[in-house]
C-alpha cells in the first residue's frame, strides 16, 4: 500500500473518479449544487462591478457626483448580493447533506465488506488499520468534500467568473493579469510534487508514532516488570520528534509555495495600474476597449478575487492528498474480493439433521507459504465425535478453518452433508456449523449478552439453563453479578479460562449440528475441563463434533481420533487401537501427555 501512496500524483484522478463512483448519492443533484455555486460566486464580482459603475457613472459623473445613480447601483447590487448569499448557503447545506449521506453509506458498506473478507485477509491487515478504514480515512474524505472540495469547486467558478468580467472590461489587462500569474503556475506544480513526498513522510511518521505509543500501552505490564520505562520513553520520544519535524518541514514548504500567489497578485496589481494608465491615457482607448478610472479600479478588485482561489487551492493541497490517500485505502479494501464468498441465493442450504463431513484430497497453503495440509482425505459420519490431534504447526487448526469455511482449500474439496462447502449458503452454514476458537473473544457487554450473541431472542432464564446443562451453574453463581456481570473490554475482566467458558456457552446455545472446538478449553483447569468434556459428550450427542485438541484427554473420550503430522493424516481410529503401535506418532504424543499429567 505504501508503494501506491508514494506515487500519489499518478492515478490520483483515477482514485477520485472511482471514489465518486463508490458514492452515487454524492453525484445526485450535483448539477443543481454546482449551479448554486456559480450564482454564489457571482456575488464576489458584484462588488468590483458596482465600484466601477459607481465611479464611472456616479461619483465621477460629468458634472459632479450623481448620488441618485450611486444609490440605484448600490441598491440593485445589494439585492443581488443577498440572493447570492442565500445561494451559497443553500449550496453548502446541499453539499453537507450529500457528502455525509454518501459517506455514511461508504462507511457502513466498507464495514460490512471487512467482515466479508476471509480471516486470512483480516489477519494480514493490522486490526487498527482496519478500524481506520471506516473511521479516519473516511473522515479525511468528508473533510475534503466539505472544506477543500467546496473551496476547489468555488475557486474554479470564481476564476471563470472573474475572467469573464475582466474580459468584458479589457482583454489587454486580462492578458496582463494572466501573464503575471503564469510563473506561479509552474512554481506551484513544482512545490506540489515536493509536497506530495513530504506529506507521505508525515503519514509514515504518524504511523510509527502511534505504533510506539500503542506498544507502551498494550505492553504496560512487561514494561513495569522489567523496569524499562526509560528505554520505552526514549523510543516514543524519537517517534514524537520525527513526527514534529516532518510536519514542520511539510508546513514550511507549503507556506513558501503559497506565497507565490501573494507576490504574483502584487505584480498583477502593479502591472494593471501601469499598463492601464499608459493605455487609457495614451493609447487608442485600450485597443478598442475604453479604459476608465473605474475599470482600472475594478481590475484591482478583480485581481484580489483572482488570487484568493489560487491561495485556497494551495492551502487545501494537503487535504486533497489526504483525501485521495484515504479514499485509495478504502478502495483497496473494497477491491479486495472476499476470497471466501457467500454463494447467496445461488447456493443451497445444508440438509436437515446431523451432518457428515468429507475432505476430498484437500491441500492448503497460505499465500506465498509452503503447504500446511497436503492431499488430506477423510470422512466423518454424522453424529460422530472426532478428536484431531497433532503437534503445534501440524496443520490441525487449518483443518478446522477449512471445515468451517473460514478459508477455502487451495486444492480439493470439503463437503458437508454431501454438498460442496463452496456451494452452501452462508446463512445456513453459519447457523448449522459453529466453531469455538481458542481465543474466546468476548464483547464489552454482560455475560448473558455474550452468550446470546448468536441467538438474541434467548431470555436470561434460557441462558442460565444453558450454563446449568454445561455444569457451570456454580461458576456462574460465583460471579459478582451473575449473568449481569460485565466482562470488560475483550472480556478482560474475566480470566482467560473463564472467557473460554462463556465462549463455549455461546456456541452451545447456538444449537449447531456440527460443532468445531479449536482448543476451546485450553486455559481451563483440568477438573473443569474434564467435567465440561463429559457434559459436552451428553449435550452434543446426536450432533457431529470435531475437537482440535492440545490436551489428549479429549482424544481419549472421542469416538475416533485423527492424528495430523506435518500436514498429513498419519493415523486414525479409536484411541485404544491407535496406541497398539508403540512407535506411532499418537503413541508418542500420548506417552508425553501421560508423563505430564499422571498424578502418581
Amino acid at each position, binding site marked *: 500500500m505504501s508503494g501506491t501512496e508514494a506515487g500519489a500524483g499518478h492515478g490520483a484522478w483515477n482514485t477520485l473518479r472511482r471514489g465518486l463512483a463508490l458514492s452515487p448519492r454524492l453525484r445526485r443533484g450535483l448539477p443543481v449544487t454546482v449551479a448554486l455555486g456559480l450564482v454564489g460566486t457571482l456575488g464576489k464580482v458584484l462588488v468590483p462591478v458596482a465600484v466601477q459603475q459607481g465611479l464611472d457613472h456616479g461619483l465621477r459623473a460629468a458634472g459632479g457626483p450623481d448620488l441618485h445613480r450611486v444609490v440605484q447601483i448600490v441598491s440593485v447590487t445589494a439585492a443581488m448580493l443577498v440572493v447570492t448569499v442565500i445561494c451559497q448557503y443553500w449550496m453548502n447545506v446541499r453539499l453537507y447533506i450529500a457528502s455525509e449521506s454518501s459517506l455514511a453509506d461508504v462507511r457502513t458498506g466498507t464495514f460490512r465488506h471487512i467482515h466479508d473478507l476471509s480471516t486470512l485477509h483480516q489477519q494480514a491487515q493490522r486490526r487498527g488499520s482496519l478500524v481506520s478504514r471506516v473511521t479516519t480515512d473516511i473522515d479525511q474524505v468528508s473533510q475534503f468534500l466539505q472544506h477543500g472540495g467546496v473551496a476547489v469547486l468555488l475557486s474554479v467558478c470564481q476564476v471563470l467568473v472573474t475572467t469573464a468580467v475582466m474580459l468584458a472590461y479589457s482583454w489587454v489587462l486580462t492578458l496582463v493579469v494572466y501573464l503575471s500569474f503564469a510563473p506561479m503556475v509552474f512554481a506551484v506544480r513544482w512545490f506540489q510534487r515536493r509536497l506530495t513526498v513530504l506529506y507521505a513522510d508525515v503519514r509514515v511518521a504518524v504511523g510509527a508514532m502511534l505504533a510506539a505509543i500503542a506498544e507502551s500501552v*498494550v505492553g504496560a505490564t512487561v514494561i513495569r*516488570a522489567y523496569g524499562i520505562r526509560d528505554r520505552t520513553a526514549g523510543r516514543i520520544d524519537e517517534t514524537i520528534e520525527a513526527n514534529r519535524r516532518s510536519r514542520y518541514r511539510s508546513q514550511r514548504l507549503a507556506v513558501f509555495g503559497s506565497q507565490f500567489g501573494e507576490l504574483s497578485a502584487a505584480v498583477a496589481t502593479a502591472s494593471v495600474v501601469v499598463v492601464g494608465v499608459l493605455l487609457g491615457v495614451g493609447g487608442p482607448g485600450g485597443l478598442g476597449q475604453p479604459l476608465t478610472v473605474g475599470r482600472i479600479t475594478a481590475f484591482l478588485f478583480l485581481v484580489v478575487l483572482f488570487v484568493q482561489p489560487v491561495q485556497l487551492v494551495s492551502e487545501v493541497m494537503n487535504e486533497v492528498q489526504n483525501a485521495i490517500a484515504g479514499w485509495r485505502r478504502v478502495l483497496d479494501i473494497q477491491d479486495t474480493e472476499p476470497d471466501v464468498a457467500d454463494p447467496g441465493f445461488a447456493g443451497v442450504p445444508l440438509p436437515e439433521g446431523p451432518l457428515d463431513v468429507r475432505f476430498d484430497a484437500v491441500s492448503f497453503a497460505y499465500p506465498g507459504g509452503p503447504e500446511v495440509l497436503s492431499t488430506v482425505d477423510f470422512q466423518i459420519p454424522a453424529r460422530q465425535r472426532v478428536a484431531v490431534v497433532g503437534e503445534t504447526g501440524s496443520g490441525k487448526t487449518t483443518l478446522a478453518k477449512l471445515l468451517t469455511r473460514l478459508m477455502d482449500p487451495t486444492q480439493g474439496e470439503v463437503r458437508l452433508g454431501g454438498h460442496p462447502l463452496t456451494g452452501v449458503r452462508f446463512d445456513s452454514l453459519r447457523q448449522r456449523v459453529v466453531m469455538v476458537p481458542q481465543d474466546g473473544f468476548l464483547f464489552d457487554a454482560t455475560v448473558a449478552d455474550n452468550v446470546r450473541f448468536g441467538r438474541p431472542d434467548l431470555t436470561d432464564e434460557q441462558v442460565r439453563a444453558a450454563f446449568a446443562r454445561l455444569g457451570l451453574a456454580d461458576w456462574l453463581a460465583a460471579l459478582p453479578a451473575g449473568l449481569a456481570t460485565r466482562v470488560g473490554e475483550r472480556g478482560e475482566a474475566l480470566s482467560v479460562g473463564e472467557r473460554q467458558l462463556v465462549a463455549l456457552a455461546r456456541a452451545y446455545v447456538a444449537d449447531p449440528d456440527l460443532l468445531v472446538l479449536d482448543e476451546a478449553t485450553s486455559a481451563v483447569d483440568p477438573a473443569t475441563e474434564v467435567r465440561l468434556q463429559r457434559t459436552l459428550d451428553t449435550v452434543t450427542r446426536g450432533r457431529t463434533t470435531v475437537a482440535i485438541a492440545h490436551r489428549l484427554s479429549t482424544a481419549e473420550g472421542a469416538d475416533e481420533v485423527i492424528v495430523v503430522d506435518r500436514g498429513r493424516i498419519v493415523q486414525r481410529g479409536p484411541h485404544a487401537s491407535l496406541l497398539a503401535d508403540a512407535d506411532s506418532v499418537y503413541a508418542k504424543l500420548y506417552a508425553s501427555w501421560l508423563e505430564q499429567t499422571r498424578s502418581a
Partner: protein
Amino acid sequence: MLGPGLRVLARAVRDEPAMFTFGVLGSALFAVMTVASAYVVGAVVGRVAVPSFAAHHVAAGGLALGAAAILAVAILKVVGIFGRRLGAGRMQFNLEARYRRQVTRRYLDLPVAWHQKHATGTLLSNANADVEASWYPIAPFPFAVGALVMLVAAVVSLFLVDWVLALVGLALFPLLFGVNVLFSRAIAPRVARAQQLRAEVSAVAHESFDGALVVKTMGREEAETRRFAERSEALRDAMISVGRVRGMFDPVLDGLPSLGTLAVLVVGGLRMRAGAIGVSDVVSVSFLFTVLGFPVTAIGYLLGELPRSAAGWERVSRVLGATGEMDYGAAHRTGTGPAVLRFDGVSYGYEGGPEVLHDVTFEVPAGRTVALVGPTGSGKSTIGSLAVRLVDPWAGTVSLDGRDLRTLAADALSRATALVPQIPFVFDDTVRGNVTLGRHGIGDAEVWSALRLAQADGFVAALPESVGTHVGERGATLSGGQRQRLTLARALAGNPGVLVLDDATSAVDPRVEAAILDSLRSAGGTVLVIAYRRATIALADEVVYLEQGRVLARGTHAELLATVPGYAALVTAYDEARA
C-alpha cells in the same frame, strides 16, 4: 463557554512565548500591510490615474512610484505571512510534541491497576487525537490576533480619512466580530456531539473487528453491520447539523464586508459632494473592506475551534493529573543469587470490586520451586502480579529476602523479579532486543544461553538473521509457542532472584515443555509457577493450593493428593477421565 478554550490558549502562550511572539509580530506586520495596501491602491488610483486621465498625460514618475509601492507593500506582507504561519506552525507542532511526551510519560509512570481501568483505544486517542485537538486552534491563533490588530488599524486609518466613513467601519466591524462569536456559540455543542459520535463509531468498529472471528463463525455480520450503521447514521445527522451552521457562516461573513463596500460608495458620494474627501479616499476605503473580510474569518475559526480544543485538553489533563503511581523505596537487594519470596496475610481486590484474595500466606524458599495450583478464577494470576509488584496488596506484605517489596528501589525490584505472563507480549524489535530489552550486562552470550534454557535457540537460529531478525508488531511473525519461549528467555536473561511463570508454557508442545522444565530445574533459581499440568507440578518442591482466593492447603504434591480432595480432583481429573 469560551472560558476553558481561552485558558488553553493562555497555556499555549506560556509554553511557547517565543514562537507566539514571532507569529503575532508576523501577523501584525501582515495586518498593517493589508491596511496599507488599500491606501496605496487608493492613492495610486486617486493621485496617479485620475490626474493622468484628467490631464491626458501620464505622470511617469508617479506611476513608477505607485507600482513600486504596491510591490513593496506586498513583499512586506509576504514577510508577515511567513512569520505568522511559520510561527504558528512551529508553536502548534512544538506543543503537540511536548504534551505527547508528557501524556506518554504518565502512561509509563501510572500503575498497572490504572491501565486495567482504561481502554487501550481511549489511551491512544488521548495521546494522539486529543492532543491534536487541544492545539488545533494554534494554527489560526496568531492570524486571529493579527486580525484584531487589523481591525484596530483599519478604524484608526478610517478616522484619519474621514469620520463619517469611519462610522461605516465602526458599524461593520463589531457586526463582523459579533457574527463570529454567534457562530462559535452555535457550532460548539454540535461539534462536541459529532466528536462523541465519532468516538462511538470507532469503538464499535474496533470491537467488531477484534471479534471478527466470532462474528464470522456465528454468522452475525448483518447484526454487527446494523449496530455500526446506527452509530454511523447518528454521526451523519450530527455532521449535517454542523453543516447547517457552518454553511451559513461563510456566506454571511463573505457578504458583510461587501455590503460595507457598497455603503462606502453611498456615504463616500455624500462626502465627496460635500467636498470632504476625494476619489482616492473612496477607493481606499472600499478596497480596505474587500481585503479585510478574509482575515476576520480567522477570528471565527479560532473561536469555533475553542470548544473542541477545550474538550480535548480536558481529556489530556485527566491523564496528566492522574495519580496513583507507585512509590518506590530506596533499598537494594544484597547479593544476586536466588531470593526468598514471601506472602504474609495478603489481601487484594481490583479497584471498585470485591476482595478476590483473602489472607494469603506462603513462602518460596531460595532456590526452590513452588507451584500455585487452583481452579479457573481462583486468583492465581493475581498472586503473580503481586509477587513482582505490578499491584500492591490491600493488606499484608509481599517480601523478598525479608524486605517489603514496597521498600525496594524501582530498578532493584525489576532486576530482582521477573514475570512471564500467560499471554506473551513481544515488542516490534529484533529477537535480541526482545530478550535484552536494553538492560545492561546482557550480551549475545547471555542472550543465547537464555534462549537455550527456554528451548528457543533452535527456532531463533533458523530465523533469516538469527537474533538480529525483526519479529514484527506484537511478534506477528512468530507462532504462539515461539512467542512464549521468547518471553521466557527474556525473563531468564536477567537472571532474576525470583521467577514467576503464569501458565507461561501453555502454547508450547508437551515435549518441548518438558525440556524447558528440566533446564529450569537444573538452573536452580527461585521459581513460583502457576500450572495445571502434572509434569509442571512435579517439578515443584512444594504446592500451594488455592480456592476462591484462599490458600486451602500447602505441602508436597503427595501430601495434598492424599489429604485435600479438591486438589486431588483437580490434578487427577485426567486419570479419572481415563479410568
